């Protein structure tokens, strides 16, 4: 009963209070400046009815998936390698430390120069946003593999391939999962930024386009959808983590 209240009722009440406060606040401003929740819902319906919404969601999700997968495919093998070979890591670490604090957004002018406009710059920015968290967590996950796991492996005479594939990779996996999780968040945040800067489609573009027509209700509709989709992706990731966690024999 108490759990029900804490986990379900309280969050719903908070949301309801937020919506009510918003509705009440919006009454004091013209809708072009501060639309009410009801206006936003109407805008979502309008965008959905004329199909603009679905096209843009589809494009955004495709860009996100492509960039994220690319980051996974590059960052995990590189991270496994650098985590295993300390010398290489030491050599390359300063470079990573310099490049990493540069916001992916700052790469935008170069990205357009190199890749032109269209999908590529946005994908590149999302890629960068996902790349560093995955790389860094993979490196530290490999380095954090308990020494005793490696001792056992060498004691039983396992060769380098078996030690790598059947000890180091699975031992590092939960740590890598954390990186994948963080990267979903940073990548999604940068998706909108990337699409606002150069793209001619996607949720970010939809928001910018709405601004050009002073459709504040549609701006907020876009923002709300970005939030909701982000939440859905996050929840999906959680679900996947649970399944893998059970498979991996870690409590969960």
């Amino acid at each position: 009963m108490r759990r029900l209240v804490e986990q379900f009722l309280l969050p719903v009440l908070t949301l309801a209070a937020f919506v009510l406060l918003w509705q009440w606040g919006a009454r004091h401003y013209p809708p072009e400046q501060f639309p009410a929740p009801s206006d936003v819902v109407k805008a979502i319906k309008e965008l959905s009815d004329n199909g603009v919404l679905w096209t843009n969601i589809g494009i955004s999700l495709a860009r996100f998936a492509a960039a994220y997968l690319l980051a996974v495919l590059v960052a995990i093998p590189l991270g496994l390698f650098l985590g295993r070979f300390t010398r290489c890591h030491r050599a390359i670490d300063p470079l990573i430390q310099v490049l990493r604090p540069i916001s992916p957004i700052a790469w935008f002018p170069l990205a357009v120069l190199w890749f032109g406009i269209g999908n590529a710059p946005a994908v590149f920015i999302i890629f960068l946003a996902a790349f560093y968290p995955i790389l860094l967590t993979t490196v530290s996950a490999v380095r954090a593999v308990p020494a005793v796991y490696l001792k056992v492996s060498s004691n039983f005479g396992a060769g380098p391939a078996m030690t790598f594939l059947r000890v180091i990779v699975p031992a590092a996996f939960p740590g890598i999962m954390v990186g994948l999780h963080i990267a979903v968040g940073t990548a999604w945040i940068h998706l909108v930024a990337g699409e606002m800067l150069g793209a001619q489609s996607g949720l970010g573009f939809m928001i910018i386009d709405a601004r050009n027509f002073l459709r504040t209700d549609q701006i907020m509709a876009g923002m709300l959808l970005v939030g909701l989709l982000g939440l859905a992706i996050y929840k999906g990731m959680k679900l996947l983590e649970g399944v893998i966690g059970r498979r991996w024999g870690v409590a969960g």
Partner: protein
Amino acid sequence: MSSETTAKIRLREVEKRFVSARGEDQIAVARLDLDIRAGEFVCLVGPSGCGKTTLINLMAGFEKPTTGEVIIDGKVATAPDPDHIMIFQDYGLYPWRTVLGNVLFGLQARKVPAAEAREKALATLELVGLSHAKDKHPHELSGGMKQRVSIARALAVEPSVLFMDEPFAALDAFTRLHLQDELLRIWNEKKPTVVFVTHDLDEAITLGERVVLMAPRPGRIQRILDVKLAHPRERTDHDFAVFRKQLFEEFHLVHRQAAEAAEYAI
């Protein structure tokens, strides 16, 4: 035959030095000689820091001696060997593998065909009484069960030597006594050579045919005690108490000497 050829493990003037954090040369094990017979159960005891772990790591090939050599089966041991399996206090089980999967690891490393490996692993789990838990993951097991899995994983590859570094130290007293009896039963059945490190004197007398008492700074052998008691040993027997008293007196001597040495050092 001379003892030269019958010794399973020979330590010849084995010395291990470490450079401490302060940059000082520290002698963890000092020019130590010891012969261990095939099938013998030897316990290494001593206060913490006297070089027990260093010594067993040297024998298992995880460390190389600074000088001297470790000879097993007539060959100089310089690297870990699947014929000499180490059992760790913290088990070293792979959490992503089931109990059966963990026991299979050594067999897979040896490229034993899958069906044969499975049969062997199941038989070994039977031996340690864990058949019922074969599909569980390590996090679902008690400490005692985990250590039994790690023993099964070792036995599955039929090593001729078992190295055990305080394997039961993290377990509660009841589990510890139970596992001591289990280990003796398995040792009697398979007769591997066992080198067993402990800081528990009672455990050493319960298990060891010989008890090697070590002293610290530098790590060395203080005394070797032949425990001439038949297994299974009753911990409440009179003779047990005699050995116990003897070992405790030596142990206190080691402690006193160590304390005095420390005082002089200040």
